[in-house]
């Protein structure tokens, strides 16, 4: 009967504690309240720490620069010049942390919209939170095709995704064949095995097969632990393809090029899917061995020659941060502007004082938004979202590293600054 006595005493204590807590909570609840709309908060979840912290910082610069421009030009005019304020959450590169941060920004910071989150896995969970809380999310830089295949109503993506890029790869190879006499018939694929590499490889297989090319070999590898690529390159070499498609991160991209040279592997062309191949440390490391490799890109330094608006923005950007805009910062810069156009529209219909209504208005504004290409700094035809929230007017470009050690845009022709070098010279014929 010790039990009964012990419990009744415990129960009493418990009740006391519960009452104290509820009273305290109620007292705290009395405080708080809303103020006037002087600013519009936008949440941003990015990898600000972790292995991608460097990229995160880069993206953050792009976002901040755009916000400064917009605020300096008078803020959101339909809301009486309200300023945009970015509130950050750090995903540390982890999907579950990103989701928790998104919740904090939405419920604690009361943001009207969300931007981010770079890695597709994090964007998946962050967008899910937004969808649940009915907060519009604008994603400027994640390229996993599945993101816009989920039927979400509150998710919008400005950048083209990996399948669109793969389709564009086919266009590019068709164009090469037309120009240089059908030299490419067989194709091999090598990719790292995270979602990005795998999805890209799958899309390549699908679209190149549809276009009548023959896929002779697909090789995947685990980038995190790769210490040698001899066997991988040898399997490719044995398949003897005309074209090799590569989806690699930095370290494996470097290893790929070095090993290809070492094993004297000479396809007629190597076409990469940006990532590792456009990383500054890749460019520095492989040096002249990287010449004549094609890469798909979203952005390139020489685009300024064709896009006057970009030339100006980049000049100011470089003056402020000391670096040029790149594919990441330019896309996030663009993302903020697109969101701004939608905010102007939404401001005509609702006020952020009523958060729920305003978020809805913003979503509708995004869904109906059209931004023409000449208002952007990207090599796109414009911004217009389909019912899944995917921008259908975006496109990539194809660049090739030339003898000056720099990438030059070679495709599509309206943005090209140089003709392609094809086929690429054999290793033995290089100086």
């Amino acid at each position: 009967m010790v039990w009964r006595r012990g419990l009744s005493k415990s129960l009493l204590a418990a009740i006391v504690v519960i009452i104290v807590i509820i009273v305290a909570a109620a007292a705290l609840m009395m405080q708080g309240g809303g103020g006037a709309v002087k600013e519009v908060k936008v949440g941003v979840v990015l990898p600000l720490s972790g292995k991608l912290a460097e990229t995160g910082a880069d993206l953050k610069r792009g976002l901040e620069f755009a916000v400064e421009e917009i605020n300096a030009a008078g803020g959101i005019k339909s809301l009486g010049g309200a300023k945009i304020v970015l509130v950050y959450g750090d995903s540390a590169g982890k999907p579950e942390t990103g989701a928790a941060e998104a919740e904090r920004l939405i419920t604690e910071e009361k943001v009207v919209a969300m931007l981010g989150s770079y890695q597709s896995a994090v964007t998946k969970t962050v967008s899910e939170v937004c969808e649940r809380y009915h907060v519009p999310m604008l994603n400027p830089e994640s390229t996993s095709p599945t993101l816009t295949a989920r039927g979400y109503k509150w998710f919008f993506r400005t950048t083209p995704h990996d399948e669109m890029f793969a389709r564009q790869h086919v266009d590019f190879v068709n164009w090469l064949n037309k120009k240089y006499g059908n030299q490419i018939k067989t194709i091999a694929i090598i990719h790292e095995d995270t979602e990005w590499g795998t999805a890209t490889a799958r899309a390549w297989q699908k679209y190149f097969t549809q276009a009548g090319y023959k896929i002779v070999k697909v090789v995947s590898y685990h980038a995190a632990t790769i210490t040698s690529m001899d066997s991988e390159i040898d399997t490719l070499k044995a398949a003897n393809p005309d074209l090799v498609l590569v989806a690699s991160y930095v370290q494996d991209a470097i290893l790929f090029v070095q090993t290809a040279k070492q094993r004297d592997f000479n396809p007629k062309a190597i076409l990469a899917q940006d990532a590792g191949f456009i990383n500054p440390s890749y460019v520095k490391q492989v040096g002249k061995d990287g010449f004549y490799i094609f890469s798909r890109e979203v952005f390139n330094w020489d685009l300024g020659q064709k896009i006057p608006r970009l030339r100006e923005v980049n000049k100011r950007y470089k003056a402020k941060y000391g670096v040029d805009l790149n594919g990441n910062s330019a896309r996030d810069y663009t993302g903020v502007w697109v969101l701004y156009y939608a905010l102007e529209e939404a401001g005509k219909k609702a006020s952020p004082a009523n958060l729920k209504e305003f978020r809805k208005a913003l979503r509708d504004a995004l869904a109906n938004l059209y931004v023409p290409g000449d208002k952007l700094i990207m090599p796109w035809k414009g911004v217009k979202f389909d019912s899944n929230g995917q921008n259908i007017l975006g496109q990539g470009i194809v660049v090739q590293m030339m003898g000056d050690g720099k990438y030059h845009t070679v495709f599509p022709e309206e943005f090209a600054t140089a003709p392609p070098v094809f086929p690429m010279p054999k290793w033995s014929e290089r100086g």
Partner: protein
Amino acid sequence: MVGLDYVANAVVSGILIGSVYSLVGMGLALIWGIMDVINFAQGDFMMIGSFVTYWAFTLAGVDPLLSIPLSFLVTFALGVLTQRVVIERVLDAPMVSQITATFALLLMIRYGAEAAFGPYTRRISVPYADVIFRIGSVSLQLPRLVAFIVSLGVALAFYVFLKTTYTGVALRAVSQNRMAAYLMGINVRKMYWLAFGLGVGISAVGGTLVATFLPIYPEMGGFYALIAFIVVVFGGFGSVFGAYISGIIIGVTESVSALFISPSLKDVVAFLLFILIILVKPAGLFGTEQR
């Protein structure tokens, strides 16, 4: 489909990278054999070696090969310090305390380095990085070949040290019977300092060697530590020379299974092999049974 020349190349490439695995494994085997302590932070001491080489190269322009003594000495000193401050205190503690302590070291070194240097990947570009030799269809990258030769040299020097010098013999005596060695007048405590210093120092040489052709980053030790465990288990625990041979076997297994099975599963093959070996022959291929 896969020709014989490719197999030859895979084998050679496996031997070259395997010789580096060997060095990390040898260090682990030495510590394990002498003190019966598993140093979970072994791969992270190797990472320190890589970073010493990296800084010597970037700040002072020291060629990575010349920084081998430096990288060895720095980690040797850190090893002795670790032994004095940490390992000594847990030598007779229950296994869980030993493992916890070296795991704590792992977390502190790895993430301390990450906090100090940033999580980024670095590389050294030595001028001879892309010198390539070709023998028939087999091609060799100079840095990898150098790594192989140096690791062979280190292993041989280590062998001679253990077999012929007084200190080496004393070390072996301590590993066989701590009490007897003590009664013979050997300063067991100092031998342990030496063992831990040497053990992590040798792994750090491996770190210096990989730095000439592979990326350097604070978390790199994780992968090499796993490989080192496989190497030690394979070679027989406490068997330093078994570790050398088995490092090379692991390297070859990986590159050949990448050729025939799938590159993305080559680590799975290595890990499965590892579990299989401890189940079937826990003493390893070259070791003797010990309880």
